[in-house]
């Protein structure tokens, strides 16, 4: 039979009645509180008994203090004289117990109790919640603000909508927490002025809300991972699947550093400095190490992918083609190239997938290299086509040394029609000043392609040959 039990604590720091009642109920079931961690409380088995618990607050208490402050010691002395034994402390909350049913309550003046609680809440609870609220509001506004200013950027990855929702949840929870506290304080003041005691808190409702918020956070994280997996971004899903437990580990290790330094009786400032240092070092080592692995092993966005390479003319070339590209320069020119280098980047969300293909080739005899670059956007949300085209087709005024203006001019889509309704419904060509560049934007209802060629492949001012158009449409049309 287990003698120790841990419980995830969702009680509220100023809900002294809730804490007292909870601990008395646990003692009646045979579990006595031994240690109150930030979130995890440790209970030890004992004979079931009617134990009275009472809490008071000491604003000077800190988890970084090597030992109880003089004030805490005085308080413990007074409590001991009144028959109360110190159990442990939880932030500024000092928890005492007694089995004497006649012991004088710890607090006999409600005005003082309320003042004392507020003094203690101003120490950690309120500043921490305000900081988290500001962070949550800033992050969620920055995320959802993008939705109105540049909707395309909002949907170009799953991270933005999900992190926006997550930070919004955090901000809402913080707003509720702060309103709840100040509302409770106002009600308590009124009740005390009318000769009563501090207002009761609906402990179970508060705990339910905390658990719901936690469950929602876990659900959002799971949905995010699922969205990445469904979007084919298994590398990104793997990254965050490792990141989340590493983050939890980081929090635990940082907390344990504080506990260890306290056990070693390190002065308060040494404990704070050590905790901060460990936080930085571990964050760098764990999260930085993970990011390094992800980049090194190509978890993100495809990249170069793995494969043998060789050097030729001071450039790295692929020993064998790494990725299957839907369209290659060889497809367009019909030539065989001796040296090929490819890289692919991907990003996207549930609503929009973007792939960026790049290929550089060099003929066997080492003549001039040429390249092709094209980006494909697949839209699950057809409404995104308009902002995407606005973004892509925006006229750009040149600045020195490139003083020409970049603009896109609509072409007749019929010239790109290959029959069988496979051709794009709109085509735009890029103009660099008054010169037509070999760059096109091809538009289908749920796909947009940005195709960039070089003048070696399509001479400046000319259009692709019909055979090349056939190849491009066959390779890049939706469903190809």
């Amino acid at each position, binding site marked *: 039979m287990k003698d120790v039990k841990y419980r995830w604590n969702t009680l509220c720091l100023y809900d002294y009645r809730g804490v007292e009642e909870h601990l008395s109920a646990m003692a009646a079931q045979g579990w006595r509180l031994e240690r109150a961690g930030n979130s995890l409380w440790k209970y030890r088995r004992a004979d079931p008994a009617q134990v009275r618990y009472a809490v008071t607050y000491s604003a000077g208490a800190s988890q970084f203090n090597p030992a109880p402050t003089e004030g805490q010691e005085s*308080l*413990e*002395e007074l409590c001991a004289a009144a028959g109360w034994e110190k159990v442990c402390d939880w932030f500024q909350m000092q928890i005492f117990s007694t089995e004497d049913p006649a012991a004088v309550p*710890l607090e*006999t*003046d409600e005005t*003082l109790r309320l003042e004392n609680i507020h003094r203690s809440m101003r120490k950690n609870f309120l500043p921490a919640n305000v900081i988290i609220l500001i962070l949550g509001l800033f992050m969620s506004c920055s995320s959802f603000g993008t939705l109105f200013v540049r909707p395309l950027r909002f949907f170009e990855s799953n991270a933005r909508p999900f992190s926006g929702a997550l930070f919004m949840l955090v901000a809402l929870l913080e707003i509720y927490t702060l309103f709840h506290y100040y509302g409770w304080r106002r009600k308590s003041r009124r009740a005390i002025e009318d000769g009563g005691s501090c207002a009761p808190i609906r402990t179970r409702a508060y705990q339910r809300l905390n658990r719901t918020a936690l469950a929602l956070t876990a659900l959002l994280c799971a949905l995010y991972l699922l969205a990445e997996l469904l979007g084919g971004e298994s590398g990104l899903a793997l990254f965050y699947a490792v990141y989340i437990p590493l983050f939890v580990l980081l929090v635990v290790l940082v907390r344990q550093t504080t506990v260890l330094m306290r056990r070693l009786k390190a002065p308060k400032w040494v404990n704070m400095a050590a905790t901060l240092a460990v936080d930085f070092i571990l964050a760098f080592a764990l999260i930085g190490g993970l990011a390094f692995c992800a980049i090194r092993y190509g978890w993100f966005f495809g990249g170069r992918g793995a494969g043998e390479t060789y050097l030729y003319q001071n450039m790295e070339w692929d020993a064998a083609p790494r990725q299957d590209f839907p369209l290659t320069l060889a497809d367009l020119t019909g030539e065989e190239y001796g040296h090929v280098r490819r890289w692919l980047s991907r990003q996207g969300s549930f609503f929009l997938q973007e792939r960026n293909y790049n290929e550089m080739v060099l003929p066997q005899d080492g003549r001039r290299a040429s390249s092709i670059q094209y980006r494909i956007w697949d839209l699950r949300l057809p409404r995104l086509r308009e902002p995407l085209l606005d973004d892509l087709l925006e006229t750009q005024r040149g600045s020195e040394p490139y003083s020409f203006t970049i603009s896109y001019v609509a072409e007749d889509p019929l010239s790109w029609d290959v029959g069988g309704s496979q051709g794009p419904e709109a085509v735009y060509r890029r103009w660099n000043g008054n010169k037509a560049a070999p760059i096109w934007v091809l538009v289908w209802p749920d796909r947009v392609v940005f195709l960039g060629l070089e003048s070696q492949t399509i001479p400046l001012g000319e259009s692709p040959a019909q055979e090349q158009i056939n190849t491009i449409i066959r390779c890049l049309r939706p469903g190809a």
Partner: protein
Amino acid sequence: MAREKFQTLTEPMFYILLTLREECCGTDVMARVSALTHGRVDLGPGTLYNLLDSFQQAEMIRETAVEGRKRSYLITDKGRETLRAEYRRLLALTEDYKTCVGEEDLS
């Protein structure tokens, strides 16, 4: 509007200051208040600790000795003046009561 601190004294405040006319420690204060009031006024240790701290900050009492965890206190001149002012206020209340109701209605 919030009452200015210590302008008027609550019962626990009054009895703590009254007890500290003689030097004593916190636990003695609890015992003496209980004895003085025949158990009518209970002084919780949390409340006592906070009041002692507040009185010290307001320079109405001063710490006189520290023996381990035990701390002794004594009222200051400012504390005595506050206590006297409270006594005068209570007397005024009593006189007003007598004026309005008379001595006979005390049963």
